[in-house]
């Protein structure tokens, strides 16, 4: 079975999605365990696949035994497997977290459907990471996006529905752009295989059609990654979605957009193109820098915890894209490393926010007075997540900051260096306010809901992520060993 792993990781959640649907119809309680075991199996498969990638470098798989470029090819290299592991790890934890947290937020009759859609989303993001075919990537992007729209609107109350609809509109616009881009490429070259495209495109680098296609891609992907100023769908979607879904969106769904961007920029088009023929990287970096500052400033202005985290995500996406945009090895490593780091810390923080809502129903930061005593473990996870976001060593947040800043120095980009360093101060402003309320202000009675920490199925994923914030910070060499050659291979041309 080892040779079929690339396709199995996609098929497993697909089967699981419908199995949990059937299981859920038999008895509603079956849906969760089926989903959980499914993702666990998938995660194991991904780990096995990692071993193969480490040994062989690149694992290729031809779907239906059709040879590329005619058939669909699955290609797994270090970047894919790195992203895949992040996505599955977070999906697994979010799934575990959802068992209790959706109880209050989603009507009970929808629980089965929730897990089906959840697994479809996982299948979609997995497909995006392993595929080597650009149209296949689009299909999976749509599967996961559609699943995401549904999940956002699955909560009680109308706000989630509106947010989900906005997200749907923006997401569909973005999908159209991407599809148009793909159409142009196919028209030019007659191939959809990424490696093949990278091979046949260079003579066409001056073609206007290609430039048009490229612009379509950039715009479409910018909406998907919520790059400032195309981020408008994001705060509402993150705020009004059920807590599990917020965590899933900010960690898994946002990363898949970033991954698609990196793939298309560097594996379909090449460094040579994006730097030499169509100098978009400078532009993207500046946008990312603005996103970092704007996201942080907007986050400072928020009073709702989840909304604050959402705006902070806008800034954090900027970090990743800034790392990618500076086009040198250190910054690129920093950006790619930040994909993991942001997933870990933002996942942790959204779960904490969900735990507060679960216990007390409070969403506003001002209401969280004295939580440090009432929910000690949850608050401890909050502290670690917040310190990591600020970038205090030795948490993960510091490690990516280190690489990004060194990359900025190497590129001689002083403005970006200032942005990177200043943004950690800005995030200190809004996270510290939060910590001040949680720990250093006494609660003023009038407490509804119970006291004490959230149930273990919610607490454990949160603490695992908090521990990961520290462990991946101290033992940062583990993720680095996987992604070290990635930056070099992506930047092969320079």
């Amino acid at each position, binding site marked *: 079975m080892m040779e079929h792993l690339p*396709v199995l990781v996609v*098929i497993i959640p697909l089967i699981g999605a*419908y*199995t949990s*649907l*059937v299981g859920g119809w038999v008895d509603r309680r079956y849906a969760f365990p089926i989903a959980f075991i499914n993702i666990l199996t998938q995660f194991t498969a991904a780990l096995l696949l990692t071993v193969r990638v480490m040994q062989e470098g690149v694992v290729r798989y*031809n779907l239906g*035994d059709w040879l590329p470029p005619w058939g669909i090819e699955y290609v797994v290299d270090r970047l894919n497997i790195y992203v895949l592991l992040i996505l599955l790890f977070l999906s697994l934890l979010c799934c575990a977290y959802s068992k209790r947290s959706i109880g209050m937020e989603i009507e009970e009759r929808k629980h089965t459907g929730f897990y089906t859609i959840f697994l479809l989303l996982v299948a979609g993001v997995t497909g995006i990471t392993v595929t080597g075919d650009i149209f296949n990537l689009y299909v999976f992007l749509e599967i996961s996006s559609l699943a995401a729209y549904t999940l956002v609107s699955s909560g009680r109350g109308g706000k989630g529905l509106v947010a989900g609809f906005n997200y749907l509109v923006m997401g569909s616009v973005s999908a159209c752009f991407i599809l148009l881009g793909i159409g142009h490429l196919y028209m030019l070259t007659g191939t959809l295989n990424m490696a093949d495209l990278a091979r046949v495109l260079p003579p066409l680098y001056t073609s206007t059609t290609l430039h048009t296609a490229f612009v379509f891609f950039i715009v479409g992907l910018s909406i998907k990654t919520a790059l400032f100023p195309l981020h408008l769908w994001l705060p509402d979607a993150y705020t009004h979605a059920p807590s599990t879904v917020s965590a899933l969106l900010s960690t898994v769904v946002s990363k898949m957009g970033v991954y698609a961007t990196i793939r298309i920029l560097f594996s379909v088009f090449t460094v040579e193109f994006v730097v030499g023929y169509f100098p978009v990287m400078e532009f993207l970096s500046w946008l990312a820098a603005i996103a970092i500052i704007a996201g942080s400033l907007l986050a400072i202005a928020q009073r709702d915890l989840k909304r604050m985290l959402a705006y902070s995500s806008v800034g954090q996406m900027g970090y990743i894209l800034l790392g990618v945009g500076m086009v040198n090895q250190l910054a690129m490593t920093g950006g790619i490393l930040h994909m993991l780091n942001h997933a870990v810390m933002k996942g942790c923080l959204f779960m904490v926010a969900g735990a507060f809502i679960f216990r007390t129903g409070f969403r506003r930061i001002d209401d969280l007075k004295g939580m440090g005593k009432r929910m000690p473990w949850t608050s401890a996870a909050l502290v670690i997540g917040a310190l990591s976001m600020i970038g205090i060593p030795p948490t993960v947040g510091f490690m990516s900051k280190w690489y990004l800043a060194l990359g900025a120095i190497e590129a001689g980009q002083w403005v970006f260096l200032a942005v990177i360093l200043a943004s950690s101060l800005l995030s200190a402003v809004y996270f510290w306010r939060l910590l001040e309320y949680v720990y250093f202000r006494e609660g003023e009675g009038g407490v509804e809901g119970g006291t004490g920490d959230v149930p273990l199925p919610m607490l454990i994923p949160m603490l695992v992520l908090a521990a990961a914030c520290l462990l991946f910070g101290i033992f940062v060499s583990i993720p680095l060993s996987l992604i070290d050659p990635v930056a070099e291979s992506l930047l092969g041309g320079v």
Partner: protein
Amino acid sequence: MREDVVIRTVCRAMIPFIQLFALYVILHGSSSAGGGFQGGVIFASAFILYVIAFGIMEVRRRMHEKVVVALSSLGLYIYAGIGILCILFGAGFLGYSAIPLPVSAAETRGLMMEFVEIGIGLTVMAVMTSIFMDISVKEGGED
């Protein structure tokens, strides 16, 4: 629901043909235009027409929601099952020719492809129907 003889009669006459056409499209997916997705949608449109003519309750009675779920899952199982069967016979995922049937490799491929299309068709049909049923319940209460 108001009785409307014309609509009901036309529907009664149309629906078998729509379904037959849907089957045609599904089964010819491997060799010509069409396939599971298109066929499935056409098949679902037959149900939708039925709902319009006879009301949702009638359709519910004939095709329970659990059946829809089961059909959508069944379709996927056929698809994934054939894919995995190919793996078990030593080929890649959906490498049809490896399945040992007493016919030539090309025929095996065509046959299996049709099974896959049927699976896809089932799922698409079931999902489209279920979406329509959900929406119609939401709009008009239970009818």
